[in-house]
């Protein structure tokens, strides 16, 4: 079934309330820390208090003698017994040599490289006993000088022998000579330096895991707060522990938010799985929030210089970008793809810029590993481009809307100069709708009102695009991915006509149990109550690549659609037999099979029962049962896009900046459940505004200590930081998947930061503040105002 027919099915586009809500609302959700195993022991990790140090020795004598201690593992125990954590994406330098890929040990081997690096795992009968023993572990550190800023990395003490200048890779995209030549004859060039501030994901459920092992079956089980249990299992068995996959079951039960930070294979997960066999005990570990701050993979942390060459009318001719990207101390699972494949390829944005050259240098520093965080590369690209475009407008005396409209892509498919081909979109429609929604016409009056109150008001635009539905495996493979990026879905029709769906996508808040059930119910003409969705268990779901990059509905949903096609094909044959008709004459709609031109019909339930009670059945031609599995590998990325308009009010006396109005118009293609989609946009926008106004991860540049290491120090967005957002949509269905969907999980976080900062700069223009780096906290805004005086 194609996208056009699909979108017309009953209940597609209806805001059905979520099936999963009852358990969450009554306290019956089951997150990893809620699970208690028989004979469970507890692990606590001894972490480095230093950003960079040689390990001279570890004295475990006192700790091992503490009450309740079962065992303490250090680097020496794992050395030679397992590999290090793998990086899932190979990036090559322009000369074809591979990136520097130093070992990422499971427990520190001779050296620690960031505050929070894992040195030892203490296992005890109770959590308190494990904590007490961890404090008694004596580690002799020889402290080295640390580097935390990406721009200081080249001159700092080397973290790894394999990377003597701390350089991980240089990567480039585009024709430099051609772009330089265009710049040389451009009528106007706009330049901008910017920092994309480092963020700490802070999913509300801290990371947690329980490792178990059965000597009877030689099977390992790992419960883990994770977004992609099959990927976790693949990485852990194939690259680290060398175990056969069928002996390892990974279960990601209810997971309390991910935002990217729970994609990755972490050292703790490996230690718990391996340790469970060594001790023949289940071992549970739950991160404290301060551990999450130190050891979850962080996000962003780019320092960039961007230049746009234009003709006299503001038409973009060429874009030139250099970015330094902070990898942190080690390469996390997808770290290397973020500032390259997921970033540079988005720099065309919504514009016809014909030539683009991007160069990226990635560096090691003594900070937590940096990896994908909601948007992953695309927020960094959008922030750079949309800040630059607004600067271009102001330098040329054009409106923020006008410069965008002059450069919008209007014909599709559109081949960008940075590898991607956009299939469809309508950027003018999003812009026009956003301007109405935001009541741009009333801005000057509101600005006058603010002025009367002694406040400054500014308006900011951002027209974002993102590449979602990750990813065509062949393209990803050619670009360095070490995994495929398809998805798997199984439809199990039960004899009484109800259905269980097994999906490789994983829901950690996105509401798949409802949206996917809606898809299946609509296709089969049954109720949503008759459909249950199972996810997050390698023991139940055939395979899966998991949830990230706004891929679940467009890739996971498409796999379910393919499986449904197979179900429908087989069910028609069964129905044809029951109605004594030819297969070709059977039609299926609204849960009923009919024969063209007759009044014969059988229901989906009758066919399901017949498949399992095949008394009257074409057994010579057809197997009993109604159970189909499909794998779907997308042929292109999907390209959600939209325009966001933000208005801020600033008190120049204090620097306090308040988002007064925020309007978002998104094109997500087909929308299955508008309520859930709006919720995703709300959450994304708040994370984006959080980055723009509040959040900032700060390491001390001398000691490498994390200064924003708790919720007391790191400003998380709260309910009273925001106005009521206005949302609307445009729909140009994706042309290459059977649903027409594009994905909606990250758009808010991608589109909103530049809209906010452009609004801040618009408000501060009259005070001669022309540049500003996130976050626009009161102190930083006030300082910028003073500096411009």
């Amino acid at each position, binding site marked *: 079934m194609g996208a056009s027919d699909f979108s017309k099915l009953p209940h597609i586009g209806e805001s059905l309330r979520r099936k999963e809500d009852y358990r969450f609302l009554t*306290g019956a959700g089951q*997150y990893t820390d809620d699970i208690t195993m028989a004979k469970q022991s507890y692990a606590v990790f001894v972490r480095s208090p230093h950003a960079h140090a040689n390990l001279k020795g570890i004295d475990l004598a006192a700790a091992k003698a503490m009450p309740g201690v079962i065992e303490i593992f250090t680097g020496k125990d794992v050395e030679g017994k397992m590999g290090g954590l793998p990086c899932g994406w190979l990036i090559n330098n322009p000369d074809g040599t591979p990136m520097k890929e130093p070992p990422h040990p499971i427990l520190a081997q001779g050296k620690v490289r960031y505050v929070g690096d894992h040195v030892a795992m203490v296992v005890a009968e109770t959590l308190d006993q494990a904590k007490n023993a961890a404090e008694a572990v004596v580690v002799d550190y020889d402290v080295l000088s640390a580097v935390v800023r990406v721009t200081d990395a080249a001159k700092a003490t080397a973290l790894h022998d394999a990377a003597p200048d701390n350089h991980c890779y240089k990567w480039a995209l585009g024709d430099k000579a051609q772009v330089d030549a265009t710049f040389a004859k451009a009528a106007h060039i706009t330049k901008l330096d910017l920092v994309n501030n480092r963020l700490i994901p802070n999913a*509300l459920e801290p990371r947690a895991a329980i490792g178990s092992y059965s000597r009877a079956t030689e099977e390992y089980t790992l419960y883990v707060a994770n977004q992609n249990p099959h990927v976790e299992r693949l990485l852990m068995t194939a690259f680290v522990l060398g175990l056969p996959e069928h002996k390892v079951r990974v279960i990601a039960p209810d997971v309390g*938010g991910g935002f990217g930070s729970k994609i990755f294979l972490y050292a703790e997960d490996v230690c718990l799985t391996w340790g469970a066999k060594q001790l023949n005990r289940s071992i549970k570990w739950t991160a404290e929030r301060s551990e999450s701050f130190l050891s979850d993979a962080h996000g962003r942390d780019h320092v960039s210089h961007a230049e746009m060459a234009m003709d006299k009318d503001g038409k973009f001719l060429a874009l030139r970008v250099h970015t330094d990207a902070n990898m942190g101390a080690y390469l996390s699972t997808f770290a290397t793809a973020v500032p390259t494949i997921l970033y540079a390829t988005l720099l065309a944005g919504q514009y016809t810029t014909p030539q683009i050259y991007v160069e990226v240098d990635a560096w090691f520093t003594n900070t937590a590993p940096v990896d994908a965080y909601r948007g992953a590369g695309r927020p960094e690209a959008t922030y750079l481009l949309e800040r630059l475009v607004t600067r271009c407008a102001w330098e040329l005396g054009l409106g923020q809307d006008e410069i965008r409209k002059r450069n919008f892509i209007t014909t599709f498919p559109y081949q960008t100069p940075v590898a991607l081909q956009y299939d469809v979109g309508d950027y003018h429609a999003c812009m026009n709708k956003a301007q109405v929604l935001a009541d741009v016409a009333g801005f000057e009056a509101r600005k006058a009102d603010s002025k009367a109150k002694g406040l400054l008001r500014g308006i900011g635009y951002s027209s974002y695009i993102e590449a979602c539905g990750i990813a065509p495996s062949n393209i990803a493979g050619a670009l360095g991915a070490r995994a495929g990026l398809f998805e798997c879905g199984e439809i199990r029709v039960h004899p009484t006509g109800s259905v269980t769906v097994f999906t490789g996508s994983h829901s950690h808040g996105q509401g798949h149990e409802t949206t996917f059930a809606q898809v299946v119910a609509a296709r089969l003409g049954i109720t949503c109550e008759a459909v249950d969705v199972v996810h997050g268990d390698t023991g139940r779901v055939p395979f899966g690549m998991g949830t990230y990059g706004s891929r679940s509905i467009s890739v996971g949903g498409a796999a379910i659609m393919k499986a449904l096609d197979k179900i429908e094909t087989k069910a028609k044959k069964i129905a044809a037999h029951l109605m004594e008709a030819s297969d070709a004459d059977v039609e299926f709609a609204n849960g009923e099979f009919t024969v063209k031109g007759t009044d014969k019909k059988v229901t989906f339930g009758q066919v399901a029962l017949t498949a399992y009670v095949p008394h009257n059945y074409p057994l010579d031609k057809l197997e009993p049962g109604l159970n189909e599995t499909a794998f779907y590998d997308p042929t292109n990325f999907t390209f959600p896009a939209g325009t966001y308009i933000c208005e801020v009010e600033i008190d120049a006396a204090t620097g306090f900046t308040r988002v007064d109005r925020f309007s978002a118009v998104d094109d997500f293609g087909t929308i299955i459940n508008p309520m859930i989609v709006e*919720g995703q946009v709300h959450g994304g926008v708040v994370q984006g505004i959080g980055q723009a106004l509040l959040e900032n991860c700060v390491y001390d540049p001398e000691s490498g200590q994390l200064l924003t290491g708790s*919720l007391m120090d790191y400003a998380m967005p709260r*309910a009273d930081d925001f106005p009521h*957002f206005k949302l609307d949509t445009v729909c140009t269905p994706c042309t290459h998947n059977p649903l027409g969907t594009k994905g909606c999980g990250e758009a808010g976080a991608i589109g909103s930061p530049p809209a906010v900062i452009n609004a801040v700069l618009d408000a501060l223009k009259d005070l001669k503040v022309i540049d500003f780096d996130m976050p626009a906290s009161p102190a930083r805004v006030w300082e910028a105002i003073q500096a411009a005086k």
Partner: protein
Amino acid sequence: MQIHLKVNGKSVHLDVPPNTLLVQALRENLGLTGTHVGCDTAQCGACTVLVNGDAVKSCNVLAAQVNGASIATIEGLAEADGTMHPMQAAFKECHGLQCGFCTTGMVMSAVDLCNKHPKATEPEIRELLEGNICRCTGYQNIVRAVVMGQAAMASA
């Protein structure tokens, strides 16, 4: 030490170390895992329960400190037949939850908020929810849910 509590209307007796937090007593001793731990600085509010009717962050109080108190957790909010409390129903209706982890504490805070401020306006509700962090929803639908739950509680 011996501690007596009334939890969700039932008397319970616990023998726990004196440093046991209320949240530990609920989760580990009583198996009431609907109350969650999201932080270690009493900032996130995921562990919010009602102590003698007041919203309290149960990670920030010792079980011994509430000896003799009446505790209400999320598990006791719905009716005996499973029918959700009006605030729970409002959260479902308004899509005021996504991953569900902050939700139980958020709902308990919202119930306390509406008991004490039955006529709170939307900006006041936003301010009164300051002690509860949600990373998923962007708060908009939580605020809508509290407005709806407030009305339902007032008319119940």
